[in-house]
């Protein structure tokens, strides 16, 4: 990547105009959608790509010989290559696997790689930032295989505390970590951790669910061995996710789900799995969704992933400043203090107001934030809260959305003032 080239910028108003849902006026007013960490909105081009598929080339993939079946297959494989290119995968045609979502991708790694490589005496290292999707599959496997699970702890501002990393890494077979917390926005030092994990003989599985949509991803530079993410958080449809894995690892792993599409041969005595990537894609894939995700990635690249990151840094900086200025001690924003060390995710705690109540007041003004534990209960425990109200930003959010958030927070503070 050239450093001379100035980062492109984009016009948020124009971007917003591409999203039909963001044109809606809700009962509380024009929508301020601040929940993209849960799921992003979809631009018209993604919706159109899926509709066009259904209207012109809808057919099951891989087995048909007729014209539209071949077209559908080609569209699916083109999406695989495009997705691989988007994340810097060296061999997309074999290493990019389509799944249902990041959760399924992570379960695949735990079940297939973990199931055949982990046993008593082994260690899996996680971080306290993890989403349940990168915790529960390991617990489930632990119950069968009896390995140890360790946790990288956090500093007071919810960054990874690497003080005792060497001790923690001792005996570890795989480090599974998030690139960006969906609660605090914390960015983790993936490349550095990967180097240290590899030096200690461990593999690295990256939960890239929150990072791939919001910043440029270069798997080769990161050095990780697996990476999982979901289509629906990056302008794509629900129902499609990706697992990228190193070819040599995927080759050696047993299939995850069994069924049609994933076999080379089946006899009365057993089966022989297919080659990559089919080996890990049992059953009819979500063809329309995979094609929609291709359109989403094209849309993101047209804006430029570096420009997207820049936009989110400046909006996050604006929000951190505006909210701190206005509410001071009354409002806690969990996580790193600087916009550069975090993604556009703000977990808010207003003194004396439960996040559920806070979000209810915000809903009256069509400010869409999410209350709850955000599927990261161990992290909530470390933060010392049961829940937070989370506002998260994406390409279509602007300072108007932040101002609406601040105004609604002020009203909540007023309403619940004791």
């Amino acid at each position, binding site marked *: 990547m050239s450093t001379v080239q100035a980062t492109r910028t984009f016009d948020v108003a124009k971007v917003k105009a591409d999203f039909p849902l963001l044109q809606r006026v809700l009962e509380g007013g024009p929508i301020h959608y601040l929940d993209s960490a849960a799921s992003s909105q979809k631009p018209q081009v993604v919706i159109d790509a899926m509709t066009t598929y259904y209207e012109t080339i809808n057919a099951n993939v891989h087995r048909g010989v007729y014209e539209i079946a071949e077209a559908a297959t080609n569209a699916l494989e083109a999406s695989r290559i495009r997705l691989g290119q988007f994340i810097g995968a060296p061999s997309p045609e074999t290493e990019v696997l389509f799944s249902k979502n990041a959760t399924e991708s992570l379960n695949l790694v735990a079940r297939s790689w973990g199931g055949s490589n982990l046993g008593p005496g082994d260690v899996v290292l996680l971080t306290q930032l993890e989403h349940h999707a990168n915790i529960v599959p390991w617990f489930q496997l632990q119950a069968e295989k009896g390995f140890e699970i360790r946790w990288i702890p956090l500093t007071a501002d919810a960054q990874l505390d690497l003080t005792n990393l060497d001790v923690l890494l001792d005996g570890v077979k795989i480090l599974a970590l998030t690139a960006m917390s969906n609660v605090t926005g914390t960015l983790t030092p993936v490349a550095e951790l990967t180097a240290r994990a590899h030096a200690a003989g461990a593999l690295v599985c990256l939960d890239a669910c929150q990072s791939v949509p919001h910043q440029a991803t270069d798997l080769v530079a990161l050095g990780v061995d697996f990476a999982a993410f979901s289509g629906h958080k990056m302008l794509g449809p629900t129902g499609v996710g990706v697992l990228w894995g190193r070819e040599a690892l995927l080759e050696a792993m047993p299939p995850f789900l069994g069924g049609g599409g994933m076999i080379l041969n089946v006899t009365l005595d057993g089966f022989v799995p297919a080659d990559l990537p089919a080996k890990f894609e049992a059953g009819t894939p979500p063809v329309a969704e995979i094609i929609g995700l291709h359109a989403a990635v094209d849309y993101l690249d047209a804006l430029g992933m570096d420009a997207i990151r820049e936009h989110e840094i400046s909006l996050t900086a604006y929000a951190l400043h505006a909210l701190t200025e206005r509410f001071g001690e009354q409002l806690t924003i969990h996580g790193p203090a600087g916009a550069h060390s975090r993604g556009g995710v703000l977990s808010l705690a207003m003194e004396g107001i439960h996040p559920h*109540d806070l979000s209810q007041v915000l809903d009256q003004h069509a400010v869409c934030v999410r209350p709850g534990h955000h599927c990261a209960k161990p992290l909530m425990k470390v933060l010392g809260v049961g829940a937070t109200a989370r506002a998260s930003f994406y390409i279509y959010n602007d300072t108007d959305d932040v101002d609406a958030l601040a105004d609604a927070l002020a009203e909540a503070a007023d309403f619940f003032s004791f």
Partner: protein
Amino acid sequence: MPGLEDLYREIILDHYRSPRNRGELASPPATRTEGFNPLCGDEIVVYLDIDDTNTVTDIRIGGTGCSISQSSASMMSAAVRDKTIVEVKALTRAFKGMMSLHESSLDTEAELDAEAAEAEAQADAGVKLGDLEALRGVVKFPVRIKCATLAWNTLLQGIEEATEAS
């Protein structure tokens, strides 16, 4: 769109600010039951003392939650003290009915004998929701119904544990 006043009646906010019967009871003899709202992470703990006449002699509430779950727990604790289990179950039925959750009988296991059915009908007829009426507006906010019923479900579980133990 229903307004905030429909949801946050003054009496609800009062119970939220000054919750009644907060604390713990020594367990045993009291039962200690945890309830979770998996959607929002709220946790509630209900401590129950039930004597051998099947009367709730003491109740304490612990845990954290939103104004709806906390006020519902607070009002519940005030409402069930000194009531018999039959009365408590009738009150729970009435409360859940107000939340538009209808369960023909909370005793799912055994069929009620005639005498018990009679007692249940009598208890149902005698139910007064009182302050709990303030939570009626929650129905207009369907996602919050789970907040309002969390304490009650935990209470029922506690009663089950207490009566099983004895």
